[in-house]
């Protein structure tokens, strides 16, 4: 504590001086300065440079040494001879990554929100030890993606617990992570396992905000549980569910670390997603094509913008609907 207060005292003269020069209210600028400096250097500046990278070619990291190339990077990235056949694309791996990401996001978000909703509904009942059960689902949320991937890799490896189970039931062992469809299935499963608890919490908070007297009224009217769910719970939960859907989709589209450690994007390109494409193009490969990676980033950003706009739209539509009702 002594050392801490020494540090704070050290800064005091600086602020006193600023206060004398600027006046009391403007000292605020000095308080936000460190934050803005970090944001400026590591967020705002990179946003601008990103556009620059996307419009230049070559392998140089320094923007000044990179020749202007217009939309070439986007052409390399997106152009296909025949859009019904991926192998005619300039960068078929990028298109595969895009399709994989869309397929992953749809399935992962859909299934996860359904399970999170069911879990939240169960946790919202009068059950014994609710706090304990809630934390059960929350625990994996705190684990690092690398740890999550290793836990499952260990279970799914060819001599792992899952194959032991199959052998015990007199079945053939399966190479879970080197068969395309299985690998894809497990990326979805593992990612739901790791993140479901977070969304369960948000939905649970939404459920607890629904006024209790509505349920009491429904009970008076002898409404069936199913009807109560459809007529009271779900409509009132809608704003909450929209937030959950969009948050989950924004995360799903950026899926990278768990899958990268679990399958490495394989087998082949079966579980390669957009962020992994960016990472490989810009950092992991022998020739580092920063321009192409930046162009891919901007494409990803476009997806995220669309999602955010969709959320605003949906929320507004939901509110309008409520007013009409």
């Amino acid at each position: 504590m002594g050392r801490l207060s020494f540090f704070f005292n050290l800064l005091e003269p600086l602020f006193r001086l600023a206060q004398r020069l600027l006046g009391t209210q403007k000292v605020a600028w000095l308080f936000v300065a460190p934050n803005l400096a970090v944001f400026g250097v590591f967020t705002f500046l990179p946003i601008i440079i990103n556009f620059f990278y996307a419009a230049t070619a070559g392998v140089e990291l320094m923007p000044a040494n990179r020749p202007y190339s217009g939309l070439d990077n986007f052409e390399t990235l997106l152009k296909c001879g025949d859009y019904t056949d991926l192998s005619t694309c300039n960068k078929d791996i990028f298109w595969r990554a895009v399709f994989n990401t869309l397929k992953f996001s749809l399935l992962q978000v859909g299934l996860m929100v359904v399970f999170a909703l069911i879990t939240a509904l169960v946790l919202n009942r009068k059950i014994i030890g609710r706090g304990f059960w809630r934390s059960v689902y929350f625990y994996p949320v705190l684990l690092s993606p690398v740890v999550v991937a290793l836990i499952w890799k260990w279970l799914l490896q060819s001599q792992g617990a899952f194959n032991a189970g199959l052998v015990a039931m007199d079945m053939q062992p399966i190479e879970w992570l080197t068969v395309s469809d299985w690998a894809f299935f497990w990326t979805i499963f593992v990612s739901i396992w790791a993140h479901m608890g977070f969304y369960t919490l948000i939905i649970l908070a939404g459920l607890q905000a629904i006024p209790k007297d509505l349920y009491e009224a429904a009970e008076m009217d002898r409404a069936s549980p199913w009807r109560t769910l459809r007529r009271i719970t779900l409509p009132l939960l809608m704003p909450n569910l929209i937030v959950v859907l969009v948050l989950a989709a924004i995360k799903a589209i950026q899926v990278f670390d768990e899958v990268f450690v679990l399958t490495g994007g394989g087998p082949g390109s079966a579980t390669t997603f957009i962020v992994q494409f960016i990472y490989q193009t810009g950092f992991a490969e022998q020739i580092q094509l920063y321009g192409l990676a930046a162009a891919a980033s901007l494409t990803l950003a476009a997806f995220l913008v669309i999602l955010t706009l969709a959320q605003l739209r949906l929320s507004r539509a939901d509110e309008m609907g409520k007013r009409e009702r």
Partner: protein
Amino acid sequence: MAIVKMLTATKGRKRLHWTDVVSYLYLVVGLFVMFAPVLWLVMSSFKTESAIAQFPPTFMPYSQKSVPIEGRTGEFPLYNVPAASGGTQTLAQISRIGIVATMVDPAKPEEKIKVNIKDREPVTELEFAWGNYTDLFGKFTFGKYLWNSVFITVIATLITLLFNSMAAFALSKYRFSGQKAVYLLIIGTLMIPPTIILVPVFLVINEVGLLNSLWGVILPAVATPTGVFLLRQYMLTIPDELIEAARMDHASEWRIYWRIVLPLSAPALAVLAIFSVMWRWNDFLLPLIVLSQNEVFTLQLALNSFQGELNTQWHYLLAMTVITLIPVTLVFAFLQRYITTGIASAGVK
């Protein structure tokens, strides 16, 4: 019938409805799905190298018993073998050619017995291989990785708390032109995930000379919109009269910040600290591009690089994974309440 009725009685309602049964069933299955994989990992991490290669695997860390034999060097694995006179005898295997094993009775080491390997059963005992853990500190630069992770987590969290609380103080307790713009600018960065500015961030870190430096991982993320938001919301509830009174007493603005506002914001600071520790300890993508040299690896990077090796040494890898998840599990066990409130109030993790 009376007993069944008593056992199934619940609080509030008279009897266990079928939906209650389904609910509890769902929860128990959930408990298994969520915790069994972690438990399996922890138990496996205590297996010896040979026990880990065994198929089918066991849940508990059993390993084959072995004994020294008089007149020979080393230890020899024990097997149960049906004896000629009926019953079984316990023999140690000294060599094996094809399907025939040569064995001796540890008590009578001169007398060699040939045994078909189909007839023998390994003698196993429960053995916790603590060596998997202790070896880590000698064999690898594991201590270094651990230190790097701890250093990044602690320093980054301290700076995060300082910078974000300063910004939150300015945005909640002052009126200055441009205040709204600054607030929106900071909150707006929530919309820009690190994944989409990866290449230019790499450039910036390279240009300021922080590549392969722990500071290159610490600095880019010390300003977080989540942190500013969380702290500002909390500081808004601190009465302005306190600050006015301090100004009357000629306290400087800096003194007001760290003697009055900071201590009063302790609960919100605690929430942000926990979040920051989790973020930093678990961080992967930024360290992956910034730290490429072995000696600056964090635990997460070390785990990733070990699992990618051709011959993964699972017994060490599993032990390392368990060590990596210990701090997070402790946070979970003791501070979960804070995280839950944090998520509920900010909607972010």
